[in-house]
């Protein structure tokens, strides 16, 4: 007797968007609120985990055609490079800068290089978590 995943799938489709939005918000607002690259990345990857559990690897891969290994590598490299950039510019390694800018749409916004660093962190987290889960799952 085969069943139908319709309930789970329909709800998950909605839920995933909520999680994703929440993840991005966590990532971006971490500087002043709880959150940040790690947690943002973790939440984003848990959204993907939900997709993998509810759907299957191939379906999700069609939707998100990413090589997560490379995402992870790129993220980690970005984190290291953001530190190196400061060194190249003559500051101590990993010096972060921040400032307040008046941007066209966003208004007065605080921009900091930490965000680049945190983006690296987030990408690594996403890439790694998915790599691990996919590696194990593909082994079945």
């Amino acid at each position, binding site marked *: 007797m085969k069943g139908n995943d319709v309930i789970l799938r329909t709800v998950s489709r909605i839920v995933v968007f909520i999680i994703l939005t929440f993840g991005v918000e966590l990532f971006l607002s971490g500087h002043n609120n709880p959150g940040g690259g790690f947690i943002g990345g973790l939440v984003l990857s848990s959204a993907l985990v939900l997709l*993998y559990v509810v759907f299957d690897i191939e379906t999700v891969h069609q939707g998100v055609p990413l090589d997560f290994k490379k995402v992870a590598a790129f993220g980690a490299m970005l984190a290291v490079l953001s530190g190196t950039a400061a060194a190249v510019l003559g500051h101590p390694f990993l010096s972060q800068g921040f400032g307040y800018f008046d941007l066209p749409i966003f208004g007065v916004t605080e921009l900091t290089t930490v965000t680049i660093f945190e983006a690296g962190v987030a990408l690594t987290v996403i890439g790694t978590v998915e790599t691990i889960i996919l590696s194990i*799952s593909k082994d079945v």
Partner: protein
Amino acid sequence: MVNTLMLIALILFSFTIVIAVYRIIRGPSKPDRVIALDMIGVNLLASIAVVSCLLETKAFMEVILILGILSFIGTIAFSKYIERGVIVERRHNR
């Protein structure tokens, strides 16, 4: 008085969790245990809401939402594990 009421609520939630932990240990079936874990998740979430009010801080709102999200994901994962032994399939064969 408000605080006392909240403390009472918190204690009630924690008792619920104690019972759920008992259910996890007793079982008898796997779904029973998963239901109990799910229950713990949502009760923790409620507890945190109460604690937030007690401490008068908004810092834990994210945690509440995240707990909701994760207890859902966890329950789905456990259910799928119980059902198929595999929680992520390569291709859904149907």
